[in-house]
């Protein structure tokens, strides 16, 4: 298969000619050198009332690792100040796992022989009804990235059904054009999550061999198109570990920072997925993202943008998740099952295979109990769709 140029837009892809955000994010990342920071820079950053991007860079550096406890304390203080003791709950729902991309690290990639499935409207309704019955009020709709198998109209129908059952509807689907985001907003969606995976375009090119997703700049500008399409909020993430995680985390923060300055009304949030290091690997990689590094990144996001939401992934174990809520995370998933149709099918695996293995399969009630045990308040909805 001939590879397309990953920096070149495909014919139907909208180009934001008047925006330089993507370019500025990539430049900032390229100029970021984590090894440059010293202990004194970290102390300085921790003492600052409002952090500059430079301070944020210090908190992400290896020099900040010995200050993890201080960072956690500062993060907890900020979270408390901005979110009180509230912790938001949501559940993701995978409605299709067809994918036309070849991303070498992903379970859904089009070369993998997995059971593919796509829920029809009836199936979506049944799944949503089952989830709504548990008491959940916020849903995140996910698909594999295939315009062919799950087109915008299909996602729109899913959003409309979701709007009947839930108070808050988010989408985590392939990047699309501004008018398409506006259409999904009309259908009831109000939150768009796009993981850039890595902001290092060379690495991105090596990992995304084929498909729409291969086009790096189109993905990079997805959040801006979503905001212009009228979405209330956008979420950012890099899959930490695909490339230099410190550089990627810096890029994620800068991406959110620059967009928030340009669109001050937009609600901003972060997700923190990571590739797990291989345990007992002889060749220990200094760029591996262990829990310690993951927590450093999460605390740095929190301290840099104390008002932003931060979602903790089900990929992490329950013990980790329970400790980061209230400290830096403000949102946690529960009742998660990543197979297609797995909320209603008798076999918990559903009819289509999962993208990844989850590490925390607790039900909504179990997560609510865990939140209460931390002295925090579980909040099922903090939102009104207008």
């Amino acid at each position, binding site marked *: 298969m001939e590879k397309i140029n990953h920096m070149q837009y495909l014919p139907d892809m909208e180009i934001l000619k008047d925006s330089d955000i993507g370019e500025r994010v990539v430049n900032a990342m390229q100029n970021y050198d984590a090894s440059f920071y010293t202990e004194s820079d970290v102390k300085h950053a921790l003492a600052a009332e409002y952090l500059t991007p430079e301070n944020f860079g210090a908190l992400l550096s290896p020099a900040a690792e010995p200050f993890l406890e201080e960072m956690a304390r500062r993060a907890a203080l900020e979270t408390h100040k901005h979110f009180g003791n*509230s912790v938001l709950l949501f559940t993701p729902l995978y409605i299709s796992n067809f994918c036309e991309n070849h991303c070498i690290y992903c379970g859904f990639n089009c070369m993998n022989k997995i059971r593919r499935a796509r829920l029809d409207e009836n199936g979506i309704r049944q799944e949503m009804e089952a989830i709504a019955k548990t008491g959940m009020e916020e849903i995140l709709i996910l698909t594999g990235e295939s315009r062919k198998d799950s087109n915008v109209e299909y996602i729109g129908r899913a959003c409309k059904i979701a709007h009947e059952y839930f108070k808050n509807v988010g989408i985590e689907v392939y990047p699309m054009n501004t008018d398409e985001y506006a259409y999904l907003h009309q259908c009831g969606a109000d939150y768009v999550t796009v993981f850039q995976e890595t902001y290092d375009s060379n690495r991105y090119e090596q990992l995304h061999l084929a498909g729409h997703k291969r086009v790096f700049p189109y993905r990079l500008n997805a959040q801006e198109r979503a905001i212009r399409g009228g979405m209330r909020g956008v979420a950012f993430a890099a899959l930490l570990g695909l490339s230099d995680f410190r550089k990627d985390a810096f890029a994620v923060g800068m991406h959110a920072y620059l967009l928030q300055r340009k669109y001050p009304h937009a609600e901003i949030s972060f997700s923190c997925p990571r590739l797990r290091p291989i345990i007992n690997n002889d060749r220990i990689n200094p760029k591996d993202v262990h829990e310690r590094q993951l927590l450093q990144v999460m605390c740095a996001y929190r301290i840099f943008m104390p008002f932003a939401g931060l979602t903790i992934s089900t990929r992490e174990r329950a013990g980790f998740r329970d400790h980061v809520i209230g400290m830096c995370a403000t949102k946690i998933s529960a009742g998660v099952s990543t197979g297609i149709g797995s909320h209603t099918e008798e076999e918990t695996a559903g009819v289509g295979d999962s993208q990844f293995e989850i590490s925390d399969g607790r039900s909504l009630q179990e997560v609510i109990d865990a939140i209460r045990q931390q002295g925090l*308040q579980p909040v099922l*909805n903090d939102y009104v769709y207008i």
Partner: protein
Amino acid sequence: MNDKFVIGGHEFSSRFILGSGKFDLDLIHAAVEHAGAEIVTLALRRVNSFSGNILEHIPEGVTLLPNTSGARNAQEAVKIAKLAREAGCGEFIKIEVIHDSKYLLPDNYETAKACEMLAKEGFIPMPYMYPDLYAARDMMNAGAAAIMPLAAPIGSNQGLATKQFIRILIEEIDLPIIVDAGIGKPSQACEAMEMGAAAIMANTAIATAGNIVEMAKAFRHAIIAGRTAYLAGTGRVLDRASASSPLTGFIQE
């Protein structure tokens, strides 16, 4: 002493308004009981987020003040206010129009517009605003029942950062001035009351205290102390000592 706090024709004896954004419902009960609050604010976006009807969770004798949190412009504020009325929250509405996700500062221009639209719809608008005299006058003329200037950015516990501007509103606006947002300690609440604020609204300061019940009590006492001092007329405070030997003592005729 008959010192009633009157807003939109309704009388209250407590001058403490409790915010509920960062509270658990169980804690609302404790705070209401110990801080003596008779008005509790609640974001409409949270109204349905508790099991059952929120109104059942609000203690007897407490007036619910729904807010339009989440609104980014006047139209959205009106929509949310109407939803609140449909949900059975009454006519009082605290207007919050915020267009900045970082500092959450209120947008005075849109807030004044919302005030006018809501007053015409029969609501009792109480606008949360940045303490600006012109904006406060616009809101008053638009039909506001009280003006709620912020003391500092919401949740910041920074205290009376806008003190001098709130003082101007107290002097110039013939409506109750309720100091909202940023009050971090009972002493700051007391200071605002001494200045002549009609009431204090707080949430974070109590929600994040080590002991919620004790902090609620402390706020109650501070607000009463400040109000009493205001009514008593605070003593003359000079900014320099009076000279014991008069400078003009040499004059003979």
